[in-house]
């Protein structure tokens, strides 16, 4: 399993390296802005870092989906499917590598955020206009009609629900891609079909999650439960995807 994960990482590491490099550059820009008292640079850097955090996680997920698609629909499929590994292991390794990458990236940006804020407080000793800018930005988002507050508790719940939502989305995409590959057997445009299936499945799972959580009003609980539901859906979809791969996939 670890070996499979090692190769999944190698397939995607260049994207991750670029993400890391760009983040490093922006972080340096932030630090320059902070210590050279250039609020403009700082603000832009912070916004860019937030964009990189969300964008980075999205890109990792997207790349994972594309890699699966390529691994099933091109000749490179032989590399995976001729090895004595069950589809459960192959798929599991992909999901784990992607999941771990996403969680690590999320944690990394979270830690970076904490570091940057600490440095800011250490230097300024007070809430600066920058912090207000960020607050303004985040106040545009709300959960179930209630505005977000900036407590650590809420922030981590938000992070949790966003990450699990993304993981669930990726599992949905995996399932859609495998179904369409199994049905169409590598014919052209199966990417289009898999996208349609993806939309359909996402809609269904979202409705189901919405129904289950309809009675919860506390935003924190709501987010945690939603996150857990997403993880449960992701697990079920993993099993179904692996089952379909095992029985029906011809490469």
């Amino acid at each position: 399993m670890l070996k499979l994960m090692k190769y999944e990482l190698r397939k995607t590491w260049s994207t991750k390296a670029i993400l890391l490099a760009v983040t490093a550059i922006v972080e340096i820009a932030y630090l320059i802005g902070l210590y050279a008292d250039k609020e403009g640079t700082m603000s832009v850097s912070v916004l860019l870092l937030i964009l990189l955090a969300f964008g980075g996680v999205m890109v990792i997920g997207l790349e994972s989906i594309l890699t699966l698609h390529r691994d099933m629909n091109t000749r490179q499929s032989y590399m995976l499917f001729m090895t004595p590994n069950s589809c459960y292991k192959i798929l599991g390794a992909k999901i784990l590598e992607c999941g771990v990458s996403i969680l690590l990236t999320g944690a990394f940006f979270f830690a970076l955020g904490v570091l940057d804020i600490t440095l800011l407080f250490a230097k300024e000793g007070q809430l600066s206009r920058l912090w207000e800018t960020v607050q303004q930005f985040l106040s545009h988002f709300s959960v179930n009609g209630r505005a977000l507050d900036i407590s650590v508790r809420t922030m981590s719940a938000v992070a949790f629900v966003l990450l699990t939502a993304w993981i669930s989305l990726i599992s949905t995409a995996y399932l859609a891609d495998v179904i369409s590959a199994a049905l169409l057997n590598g014919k052209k445009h199966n990417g289009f079909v898999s996208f349609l299936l993806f939309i359909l499945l996402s809609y269904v799972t979202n409705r189901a999650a919405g129904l289950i959580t309809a009675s919860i009003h506390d935003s924190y609980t709501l987010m945690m439960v939603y996150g857990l539901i997403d993880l449960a859906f992701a697990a079920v979809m993993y099993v179904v995807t692996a089952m379909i791969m095992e029985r029906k996939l011809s490469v």
Partner: protein
Amino acid sequence: MLESREVTKVFGAKTAVDHVTMKLEKGHVYAMLGPNGSGKTTWMKMAAGLIKPTSGEVLYQGQPVSIASRNEVAYMSTEPYFYTWMTVRDVGKYYQDFFADFSMDRYQALLRRMDLTEELKTKALSSGMMAKLKIAVTMARDARVYMLDEPFNGIDLLARDEIRAAVLEYATSDKLLLLSSHLVEEMEAIADRAVFLLEGRLVENVDLETMRMERGISMADRYRQIYGHTEG
């Protein structure tokens, strides 16, 4: 060792393999012959577990082909399939990671015989070099069954001699080798049995020396007899 029972594969409207029933025994080198589209590749992929039959089954050592049989059945496809970001060395390491019977020493020896260096990137390989790499990495495994799909395609004369020699070295009494190729004459002396497929069906499974003695024809002659009037 490898048994095909009424194996059929249908792709939409096309029947690629049509109720093929045959037994391939260890200790022999089989030539699998037939024109493009006769079902050779599809059959091999089913024996390798890459494709599931529409009906029928392929048995390895009496058991249906499974994930476990991939440990002992080595398949080499006609097309290149290595990850493009890999070097020749990476390909070897990949096989070493997943196949217990892979020997890095044997791999390196085969690379030398084929004039390939480990630093080469797979995406920089010419089609001839790619063909040689596929053979090297497949034969570096100590499998019980080797299925080579078009092993001589795109390969120069000297390398073909090397491949023939390697095939003969591996043709021991406990192994089964199955070679499919258009280059019928290349295999006349090294194969001792031949399987002929036509439009997905098995035409014949013969012992070559017996055929030569009884009918006074070569494998190439038999090929022309079977496929001659269906072409052109």
